[in-house]
């Protein structure tokens, strides 16, 4: 059963207005910018964005007016600092922000992935992150905790979070959605299992045999996936290990070019609205820049034998 769709179809079918959308889950790598831009072009409204750190994609979607709420640990430009549209929206009250920490984003998604209403943790005790935050509840361990002679351990219960849609960018998938990924995973695996629907955007759609040749490299089994999209360079300007480097200049330029609301609109016009799809975006970026980001030195993983 092929689940291959264009990015346009996948977003149109699977990301309705007011959905909660988890994306940017592998942290600074493999951020699904192409998918985010398609959501902007399709003028989705009232979204809740979920992700640990986001690195400028959330800022773009906020600038475009798609977003009602953010559930995240960090929203900004990792290399440069603040992201201006997020900051403006949060300061002026137009955006609801639920503050979590990286670990508690992971725990909330993992609780949902595991099918339990919460997971316990020792983090954020005494912090304001947990204050007036309905993702947190203080509980005591039902077991004697031998490490603390002061009685049972005090813990935070972190509430389960099920995204309506999880969007993942990665290196390669087959047409059923079985997908390989390498590099750091962040909270991607939990977010896929926690989600009601999953979109896999891959640099390459490959034969099923390629994926099946290495089942330990498979991070997503196809039966959890609703749509598979092939999209080269779909994570630019974030890096994809083995495919292209991080475009540091692009992040720097974004920082410089989006300080005001007007400038941000100009930026969106140029890089999102006026390009029909990722191909047009890449053309605008230019062959020279694309070439510069390409892999210069291959580094292949050691041979691994699944034979018997």
């Amino acid at each position, binding site marked *: 059963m092929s689940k291959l769709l264009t990015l346009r179809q996948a977003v149109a079918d699977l990301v309705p207005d007011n959905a909660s959308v988890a994306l940017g889950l592998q942290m600074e790598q493999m951020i699904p910018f192409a998918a985010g831009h398609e959501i902007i072009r399709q003028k989705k409204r009232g979204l809740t964005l979920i992700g640990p750190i986001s690195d400028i994609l959330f800022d773009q979607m906020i600038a475009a007016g798609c977003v009602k709420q953010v559930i995240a640990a960090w929203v900004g430009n990792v290399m440069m600092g603040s992201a201006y549209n997020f900051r403006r929206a949060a300061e002026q009250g137009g955006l609801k922000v639920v503050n979590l920490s990286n670990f508690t984003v992971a725990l909330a998604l993992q609780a949902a992935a595991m099918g339990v209403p919460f997971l316990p943790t020792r983090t954020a005790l005494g912090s304001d992150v947990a204050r007036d935050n309905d993702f947190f509840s203080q509980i005591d361990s039902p077991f004697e905790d031998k490490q603390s002679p002061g009685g049972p351990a*005090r813990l935070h219960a972190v509430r389960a979070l099920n995204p309506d849609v999880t969007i993942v960018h990665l290196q390669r998938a087959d047409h059923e959605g079985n997908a390989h990924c390498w590099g750091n995973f962040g909270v991607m695996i939990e977010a896929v299992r926690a989600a009601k629907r999953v979109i896999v955007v891959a640099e390459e759609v490959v034969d099923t045999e390629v994926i099946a040749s290495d089942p330990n490299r498979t991070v997503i089994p196809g039966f959890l996936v609703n749509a598979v999209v092939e999209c080269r360079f779909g994570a630019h300007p974030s890096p994809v290990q083995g495919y292209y480097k991080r475009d540091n200049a692009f992040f720097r330029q974004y920082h410089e070019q989006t300080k005001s609301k007007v400038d941000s609109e100009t930026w969106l016009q140029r890089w999102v609205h006026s390009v029909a799809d990722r191909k047009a975006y890449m053309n605008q970026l230019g062959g020279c820049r694309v070439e510069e980001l390409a892999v210069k030195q291959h580094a292949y993983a050691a041979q691994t034998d699944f034979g018997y």
Partner: protein
Amino acid sequence: MAITSTAISERRAQAYTPGELMVVSAAREIRDGEVVFVGMRLPLIAFVVAKKTHAPHAVGLFENGLIRSTPAPELIYTMADPANIKNATQCLDMLGVMSLLQSGRVHLGFLGAAEVDRFGNLNSTEVHGTNGMTRLPGSGGACDIASLAQRFVALLEHSKERLPERVSYVTSPGNGDCRGWRQRVGLPRGGPAAVITSKAVLRFGDDREAYLSSTHPGVEVEDVLQNTGWPLRVSEEVISTPEPSVEELKAIREYDKDGFWTK
């Protein structure tokens, strides 16, 4: 630290930037063989410098799920840069590294912050000032590192605004407001070991309040006190922050060639 600073003073360095001094001071907080939660920005370089100088057996954990026992071979701007992933010790997920942190296996974590207060509490979420609320990027993993590492070190610019008596939002718990506070709220261990600013290094006494431990070369004690938002106590043995060694500067400059982080 005593041994290290003696060794360093013998090979006193040439001119260096404030950023370089902060990175070197952070690097020296890493003891050899320790497991370090590295964090974003300046600590990315501090870890590399430590690995290349006095702490070759340190292990770095990164909150995206990465473990490295060798320094990244070239400058990285984020912890997920391809150079940080290639030849890593392990690429796993955030829950994996956070589990190691929560179970007490991390000796030291580094944190940036917009505000640090008298008891080493950190704010990187929102500052409530006279001009209303300023929204910052948020915790990231900072709250987790401050909660769960065996000790943590904060880095920031030194100014009265950024070192208030009490942070307006506790993103990352330090010592709360007194000795015993961490235990009372249920934190399993840890707390601030040092605050490295652009002017000085603060440390924490038995009562868990910050005191001035060293001023950076050329910075007067009075300057530090006037630019701190509470009556900062001064150690009787306040010293001058040891300067970077030639070796340490070389490690920084070979790495951050254009001074992106350290100029």
